[in-house]
């Protein structure tokens, strides 16, 4: 009954209530959308990281995370690992890689690079490197071909078909190298990757680094991202202590930290916006209550307790905030849907690419993102209503009735 009473009280002065509703909706829609863009950005960073190199899970020889040297390898083509992966239905695809460092020289320039040997077919199923090809052919078509990031090729001033020399220190410590031709150029959302990575065929990389049939890592992608941790634990148990099984979150904890820091930022944003809003709500409620002094006196006289009067005012605050929240959230969702093709941020392309974010960004809002503003709004509305509510109930009925 108090709910109904409070609701109707709101609409005694529709314009005043409408202004408050609009203020609340603007506050929440704006905040939700900003956070949506931020979360969209982090999402992109995570997606890029996973799809370019990390995958969902990586398997290395034990101790690799602390000391990622060339010598820490999985022997025999990581056969046991592969077998375990093939048995597990949660695994969507897997691939093997060789990782090392080297120097790449062209006739005109040189650059320090990471040399990654990839399995031509499998790599395409796991990462987006194959799709990122903008010129030339993927690996496997012809021998002694290397794939370069577009910006790396620019730095070295080479084009498709040009010769390059790759110098490395192999597994036994000898300085060695090989000649390759530029077989293709790729462009990924990560400028870091494009600038510093050279791709070779797995077999040729194994020869270059004198690894025999050993590989540096096995990369796995799953069907359902929520199963990553479960799969990781079962794999780790199955494969034993000679290998390390790590999820992407463990390999790049910074991505997780970024989400956490955005969560904190969201908290501050909502707290600030809703505090400002609380003043406005308190003001309106105070005015409304003041106008109803005599009526409240009458209500108390006929037997409405102080507590109920307080509850009624608090409910009015909750109602107006609730309506504002509903409208604001609807607007935010609508805007997110409208912007689903992404906001054009090409003016910031380079800055974004440094973190693996493509220049078209869509805001992302999930169910959990609505929880925080709801709670904070509720608390703010409650606090805002305290003074007006206590003010409403403070007078004795007889005095309130006589109010002029």
């Amino acid at each position, binding site marked *: 009954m108090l709910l109904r*009473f409070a609701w109707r009280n709101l609409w005694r002065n529709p314009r005043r209530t409408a202004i408050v509703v609009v203020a609340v909706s603007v506050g929440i829609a704006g905040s939700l959308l900003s956070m949506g863009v931020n979360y969209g950005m982090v999402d992109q960073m995570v997606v890029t990281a996973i799809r370019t190199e990390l995958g969902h899970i990586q398997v290395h020889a034990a101790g690799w995370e602390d000391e990622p040297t060339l010598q820490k390898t999985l022997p025999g083509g990581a056969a046991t690992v592969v077998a375990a992966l093939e048995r597990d239905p949660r695994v969507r695809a897997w691939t093997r890689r060789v990782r090392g460092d080297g120097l790449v020289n062209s006739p005109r320039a040189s650059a320090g690079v990471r040399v990654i040997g990839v399995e031509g077919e499998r790599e395409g199923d796991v990462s987006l490197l194959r799709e990122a090809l903008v010129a030339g052919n993927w690996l496997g078509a012809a021998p002694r071909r290397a794939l370069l990031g577009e910006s790396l090729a620019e730095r070295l001033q080479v084009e498709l078909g040009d010769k390059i020399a790759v110098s490395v220190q192999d597994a036994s410590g000898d300085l060695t190298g090989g000649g390759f031709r530029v077989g293709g150029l790729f462009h990924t959302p990560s400028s870091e990757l494009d600038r510093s990575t050279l791709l070779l065929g797995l077999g040729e990389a194994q020869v270059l680094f004198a690894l025999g049939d050993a590989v540096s890592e096995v990369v796995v992608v799953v069907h359902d991202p929520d199963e990553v941790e479960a799969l990781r634990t079962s794999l780790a148990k199955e494969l034993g202590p000679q290998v390390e099984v790590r999820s992407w979150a463990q390999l790049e904890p910074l991505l997780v930290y970024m989400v956490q820091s955005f969560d904190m930022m969201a908290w501050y944003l909502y707290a600030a916006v809703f505090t400002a809003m609380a003043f406005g709500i308190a003001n309106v409620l105070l005015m409304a209550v003041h106008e109803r002094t005599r*009526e409240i006196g*009458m209500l*108390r*006289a*006929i037997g*409405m307790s102080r507590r109920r009067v307080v509850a009624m005012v608090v409910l009015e605050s909750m109602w107006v905030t609730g309506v504002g929240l509903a409208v604001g959230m609807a607007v935010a969702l609508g805007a997110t849907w409208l912007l689903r093709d992404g906001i054009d941020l090409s003016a910031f392309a380079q800055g974004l690419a440094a973190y693996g974010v493509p220049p078209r960004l869509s805001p992302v809002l999930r169910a959990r993102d609505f929880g925080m503003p709801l709670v904070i709004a509720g608390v703010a509305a409650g606090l805002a209503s305290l003074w007006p509510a206590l003010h409403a109930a403070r007078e004795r*009925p007889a005095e309130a*009735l006589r109010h002029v």
Partner: protein
Amino acid sequence: MLLEARGLRKVYEGRGVVTHALDGVDLDVQEGEFAALAGPSGSGKTTLLNMLGALYVPDAGRVALDGQAYADLDAGQLADLRLHKLGFVFQAYNLIPVFSARENVEFVMELQGVETQVRRARAQPVLSEVGLERLGEKRPLELSGGQQQRVAVARAIVSRPRLVLADEPTANLDSKTAGRLLDLMGRLNAEHGVTFLFSTHDPLVMEAARRIVRLQDGCVVADEVTAPTAEPGTPEGA
């Protein structure tokens, strides 16, 4: 005895001036009475009515309803008492503007926690009783002054209180409408035994009352049972 009051005092002190709003008032009210507290403004009649209605705490003296002393109850319990045992009709601001007439009548029952069906069942006949059976869905602003006061009366009696306290209920009405309102209350008193206690300086009310307690400067100066000057239901005056 329905209502007993002994030695009621209320003193106001303001800027060095001491006013005795009530100066030792004794009063007994029996069930079925149709009585008025009369007197000029400042005589203390409203103060007395508010004390009897558990809206004011006296500086001295005691009030008891059905033997229950008000002084023994805390503020919350007094509110409960007002809710269940008393009915109020004020001069104005009786009704909640955002509720319909029917919802206003049901309001007290809602506060009491009565279920919806029972509330409905009780409100409708009371609305008919006050002659507003077809205006139940109207909001107070859509009703005339007299109709609003009738709704107030309906609300005051619907939960069958022990006593209805009416503070200048006719003050804002023209004499014809006032007369009809008084007839209504008289009928409720005669046919249903509802006890009414008015505070008034309206001669119409005083004529309708069967007992007049006159107050002056905070004291009872007269307490007369008047012979009923008219049959209940007959309009008095023009």
